[in-house]
């Protein structure tokens, strides 16, 4: 376990009892009350995770999920009859995002956080906003053209993610003898492939495409065509215990989907180069009939 994860676990263990013992627990809509009292909605964002969320050269917070959250905040203003609500931005990353939602610093965590059964025990999730399915990035020159060619090869994978579990299962199923190499973020995951330390990198293909496009070896990098992982249900994360707030957020997302704004936002970020990625089946289904189901594994 990385030191940060260890801190996180210890931190959460301390935060959880403090939260349940606080007077807020007695309120039925603690998040809404807090937002109304402060006159502010706080968005938690990832500063370096394009195209989902990043800080551009002008210092502005932008990205696919950030734009969805901005739309949600606009809808909240109407629903709560408070056009004066301000939006604040707090940077967060996978090691601190859950405690920051728990301790009330962040109202809406807008990135690519997987909705899982384990996480639902401590936080709440909105309707899913994207369904990335993991893919293997490889070098064309390595001769890996099929998932079977990964036999005995080394693969970089993000530690503690859904993809890590998928890799283990795939390895067991096809008896490939894959040597996993753990990375702590997408940049490192890709760097391992780019510098030749591993033969393949398993990750969200959208994030990987960002790095491939910027690599000096872009022409030599591609995805293994015959395999993709089970889609992960990524959603906006919120504090647990305010169902009215969650339903307002969900209503806003539904309205965004029905009005065509959601598709427009998708096209703006993901149909543009270097992604040129049409919506996958999971997201199309979600548009027609939104759910907040956790990732199935």
């Amino acid at each position, binding site marked *: 376990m990385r*030191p*940060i994860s260890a*801190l996180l676990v210890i*931190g959460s263990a*301390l*935060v959880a009892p*403090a*939260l349940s013992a*606080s*007077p*807020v627990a007695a*309120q039925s809509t*603690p998040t809404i*009350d*807090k937002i109304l*009292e*402060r006159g502010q909605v*706080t968005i938690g964002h990832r*500063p*370096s*995770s*394009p195209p989902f969320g*990043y*800080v551009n*050269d002008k*210092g502005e917070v932008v990205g696919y999920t950030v734009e969805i959250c901005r739309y949600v905040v606009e809808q909240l203003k109407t629903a709560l009859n408070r056009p004066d609500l301000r939006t604040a931005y*707090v*940077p*967060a*990353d996978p*090691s*601190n995002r859950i*405690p*920051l939602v728990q*301790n*009330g*610093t962040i109202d809406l965590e807008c990135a690519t956080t997987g909705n899982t059964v384990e996480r639902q025990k401590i936080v709440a999730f909105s309707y899913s906003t994207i369904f990335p399915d993991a893919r293997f990035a490889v070098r064309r020159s390595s001769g890996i053209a099929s998932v079977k060619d990964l036999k005995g090869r080394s693969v970089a994978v993000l530690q503690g993610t859904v993809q890590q579990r998928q890799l283990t299962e795939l390895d067991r199923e096809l008896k490939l003898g894959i040597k996993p190499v753990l990375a702590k*973020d*997408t*940049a*490192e995951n*890709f*760097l391992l492939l*780019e510098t030749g330390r591993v033969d393949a990198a398993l990750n969200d293909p959208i994030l990987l495409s*960002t*790095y491939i*496009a*910027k*690599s*000096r070896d*872009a022409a030599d990098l591609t995805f293994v065509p015959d395999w993709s992982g089970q889609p992960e249900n990524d959603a906006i994360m919120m504090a647990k215990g305010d169902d009215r707030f969650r339903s307002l957020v969900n209503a806003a997302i539904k309205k965004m989907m029905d009005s065509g704004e959601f598709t427009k936002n998708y096209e703006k970020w993901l149909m543009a180069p270097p992604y040129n990625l049409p919506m996958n089946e999971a997201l199309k289904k979600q548009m027609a009939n939104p759910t907040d189901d956790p990732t199935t594994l």
Partner: protein
Amino acid sequence: MASSWQVLLAALPQLAEGLVFSVTLAAVSAIAGMLVGIPIALARISGARALSAVAWAYVTLFRCVPLLLVIFWFYLLMPLLAQRVIGARFPVPIGPVYSAFFTFMIFEAAYYSEIIRAGIQSVARGQYEAGRALCLSSVDLYRYVVLPQAIRRMLPILLTQTVILFQDTSLVYVLTLPDFVGVAARLGQREGQLPFFYILIAVVFFAISFALSRAVRQLELRGAAAAY
């Protein structure tokens, strides 16, 4: 593909802001840490048992836990503690910036107080006795005899500790703050050019820390010369 230098050029304002943040964090927590450290040092060497025990406990606690842990816990738990203390209805949000400054100040105060204590105690007993023999009051004794010698001895170590503090500011990355390391690493991640930006961080930190330690060395030499 944009070259590393083009990315660097476009990001210069952000990097400059990051560097200003890191330097400010180091400078403010050094000054505040010394100011808080003085009373702690005096409490430790005071005759009052209870006072001395409290100061000892403070210093021992902070010198025995990792700074990373203190930064992380303080940021995550303070809103809840503050809520309890002032009886607010909601957790009191303490921004990452205030949180970082406060954590560094209380943490560094423990280190500075030990340097200050050692400096004061390094002044030979005979100096105190000589002062008393001249009928100096306690205040005058410290002002004219003890502190000038103590400060000369502890200044290089205080400054060395400040250089270490400057390097430690990079730990605020756990708060995802825009300090120099945070901004540079973030750009490296965004642009897929981690090695370039990690080298840049190393070069900048080396240049600043090396210049500072040369300055401390000069001061030490001067202090040593003045002592004779």
